C-alpha cells in the first residue's frame, strides 16, 4: 500500500496535469512512487553528469524544410 504522502503527492501532480481519478486507481499509481522518486534523484548524483550535455538538440531548420 502506498503511504499517505505518496498518495497526496501523486494526486497533486496528476491534478496539476489535468487528470482526476478515483482513490483505488490513485493507490495503484502511487504505489512505489517514493522508490521511483529516489531513483530519479540518483540521476543527479554521478560526478560525470555535473557538466554533461543532454541528449537533446534543437535544430534551426525544421525537418523536411
Amino acid at each position, binding site marked *: 500500500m502506498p503511504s499517505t504522502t505518496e498518495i497526496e503527492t501523486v494526486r497533486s501532480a496528476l491534478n496539476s*496535469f489535468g487528470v482526476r*481519478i478515483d482513490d483505488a*486507481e490513485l493507490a495503484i*499509481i502511487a504505489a512505489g512512487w517514493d522508490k521511483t522518486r529516489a*531513483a*530519479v534523484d*540518483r540521476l543527479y548524483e*554521478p560526478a560525470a553528469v555535473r557538466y554533461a550535455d543532454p541528449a537533446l538538440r534543437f*535544430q534551426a531548420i525544421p525537418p523536411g524544410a
Partner: protein
Amino acid sequence: MTIPLTVTEAAQALRDGTITSVELTRAALDQADRFDEEMGVYLARFDEYALNRADEADRELAAGHDRGPLHGIPFGVKDIIAMAEGPTTAQSLVLDPAWGAGRDATVVARVKDAGAVITGKATTMEFAIGMVDSTKPFPTPRNPWNPATWPGGSSSGTGAGVASGMFLAGFGTDTGGSIRIPAAYCGVSGLMPTFGRVPKSGVVPLGYSLDHVGPLARSAHDCRLVLDTIAGPDGVDPDCVAAPQRPAFESLAGRRIGVVREHHFPADADPNLQPAFDAAVAALAELGADPVEITLPYWEEMLTADLVAMCSEAAAYHRGDLISRWDDFFASTRATVALGALVSGADYVQAQRMRRVAQQALVQTFGTVDAIVMPTSATGAPRYDTLTDARGRIDVSALFGTVFTPYWDSVGNPVLVVPMGFTVDGLPLSLQIAGPAFGEDTILAVGEAYQGVTDWHLQTPAHTSAAQLAS
C-alpha cells in the same frame, strides 16, 4: 511440400522454383485460419491484398524482375505502424482513426518496394505500453509455446506470428524492449537497430528519443535482410542518419566478446538460465571468440532514464486524451504514462544528460570488446495468471526485475536477440548481443555464427506446428 521456416530458405526456394509466393502466402494464411482465434496475432488481415501481391511477386520473379530477398515473403506489421491498406489503431480506442489513414510508414513503403507480401496488422500493447485489458475490445495475444503465457510485448503479435508461421518476418518497435522481449519469449530472433539507423516516420510515437523500428524473424540472417531493406534516412525523421556500417568481420576468431553477468541472474531466474548462457558463451569461444567478463556502466541510471524519458515523452503526446478520455485507455497504459506527469522538466533533461554520460562510458567499453552478450530475460514467458493484480487487471511491473532490455534503449546501441535454449518448463530462453553504435554488422555476424552451430532458432512450438509440414 515443406514450408520454409526462414526468409533465407524461402527466398532460395522461390528462386529454385520449389515453391511459389502464393503457396507461401496461402500456408501463412492457413496458419492464421487455424490458430489466430486462439493466438491473437492479428488485429487486421489483408488476405485478398496479400494473395494479389503474392501472385504479382510470382509473375515478376518468373519474368526475371527480382526485387531482392523479401520478394514474395509473407510479412507482418505491428499495428502502431501506418499502412495504406488499413487503419492503424495502436490497439487503442483513443487513437484518431484519421491518423496515418491511406499512408505507408517509410519502413512499410520500403518493404513493399522490396516485394514483401504484407498479410496484416499485428497486435501490440496499447500504444506499445499498455498490457492487455479485458474490458477493451481487442484480442489477447498468446504465446505459441504455451497459450497460457504472454508472448511478450509490445510487439506481441509480430513475435507470436513469426513463431507460429503466420508470416516469416515482421516489424516491431522497441522503446524499453518491445522487439527483444517478444522475440525472446516466442523463441525467435529480433534486432533493435541503432537509434537513428531506421526512420520512425509513420510510427505512432511512444518515446520520441527512444523509439526504434526493427525486424523480428527466425534467424539473425533474416533480420539482416530486413534491416538492409529499411535502413537509411527518409528526409522526414530528423533522428535518422546515413551512418555507414562498421567493417564486418568474416569470423569470430580473436574477437573479444564482453560477457555481462552482474544484474542478469536474480534469485528467481530460471534454473536453466545459467547453463544455457554458459553454453552460449562456450559456443562463441569454440568459434574462436575471446570471452571477457565485463560490467555495464550506469546500469541503474539507464533503467531510470528510460522510464523518465519514455513516460515524459508519452505524457506530452497523450495529455489531451488522458484528460478527456482517461477511461478509454487501458488501465496499465494510463498508469504508466501518468508517471510522466510526476517528474519535472528538470528531471527529464537530467535523464537525457545521464544518457549522454552512459553513452560516452560505453564508447570506452566498446574500445575493449567487439560485442557484449547477456541474457534477455531471467525467465521464460510468464503465465498470464501470474501477471494479474488483485483487481483482475494485467500488471506488468512484476517483470521489471527479470527483463534486461531498457538499458540499451537508453544508450541507443544496437542489440540482436537470439534463442539460446529452454527453461525447465520448455519455454524459450534468449541471448542479447549488443554492439557499438551503428555496429549492426558486427552483432549480426556474431548471431549468424552462433546460429551456424546451434539450432535453437529453428525450434518450433508444437502447439502451432501442424501446418509447418503442410502438403
